[in-house]
């Protein structure tokens, strides 16, 4: 038989080589662990600062969602709007029983920054939570963050 023949050994060697290359590429893409850590810390600090500056007093401001709009100017939304464009935030506040109460984000549909779809397109999204109490009620606040 002339020319090259693919033997079982060659198939095995090629498979192992392919696996090695694939695992190295995967490892290289996962070495940016510190970025997620920074995002988590940013999220916790953001929630802590927002609570201390009374920006999370959405409850006492009466910012209930009525007909898709919020009937008051919330400081919390202002804070989110002033975040650096590189950091995308999506906040949800719920009642203690888990039912939806309030939502705010800096997702801009008109620009390429912070698109909601980014959060589902392989971009690393971190989630942090804080529980705030107002008027004797407990409100879990969850923040989802990702780089836009």
């Amino acid at each position, binding site marked *: 038989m002339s020319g090259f023949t693919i033997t079982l050994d060659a198939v095995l060697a090629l498979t192992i080589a392919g696996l090695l290359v694939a695992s*190295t590429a995967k490892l*290289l893409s996962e*070495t*940016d*662990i*510190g*970025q997620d*850590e*920074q995002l988590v*810390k*940013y999220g916790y*600090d*953001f929630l*802590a*600062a*927002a609570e*201390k*500056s009374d*920006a999370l007093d959405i409850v006492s401001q009466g910012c209930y969602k009525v007909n898709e709009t919020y009937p008051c100017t919330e400081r919390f939304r*202002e*804070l989110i709007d*002033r975040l*650096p464009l590189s950091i995308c935030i999506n906040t949800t506040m719920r009642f203690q029983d888990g039912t939806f109460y309030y939502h705010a984000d800096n997702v801009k549909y008109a620009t390429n920054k912070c698109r909601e779809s980014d959060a589902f397109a392989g971009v690393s999204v971190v989630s942090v939570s804080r529980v705030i109490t107002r008027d004797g009620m407990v409100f879990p606040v969850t923040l989802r963050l990702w780089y836009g």
Partner: protein
Amino acid sequence: MSKMCSDKKGQLTTLDLIVSSMIFLSIVVMFIWSWGEANAVVMGTEQMNDYRHKAIDLLDILLKTRGMPEHWEDSDNLTNVSSIGLVSEPGVLDRGKLRAFEQMPYQEARRVLGLTHEGYYMELLNERNRTLYTFGRDSGEFITLERPALLDGDFVTFKLGLFEEG
């Protein structure tokens, strides 16, 4: 005649050898090149992660502790200062500490911050993105991180940049 045929068989084997050697060598060259590239990427990422972790730790110390001693800003002798903190309570910046840190000599601040091979540049921005305070040297940062904090009840952004410095 039959002898000539056997000679041709030998030549064919040599051609095979040349082709296979070329293929083998090109694979070896490609492997060495990709190994070098991967190594450079790993080294770069490792250095970047080192800087990032250092910056994360520094931000934690500056924005969550008061420093050591607690009122280090009143200290006349900087050699007594073992740690710098810029807050009166976690996340709430103190103007007295900010001013003291702003006036601290750069090399002295580097020593207290534990930066042996890194230089730093820090900036405090208000809600309208205007600079309130700057610290250190602006030398084109290698890595920049930022955190939210409060100053006099207002939301501010604290930026920290690190770069290589001997």
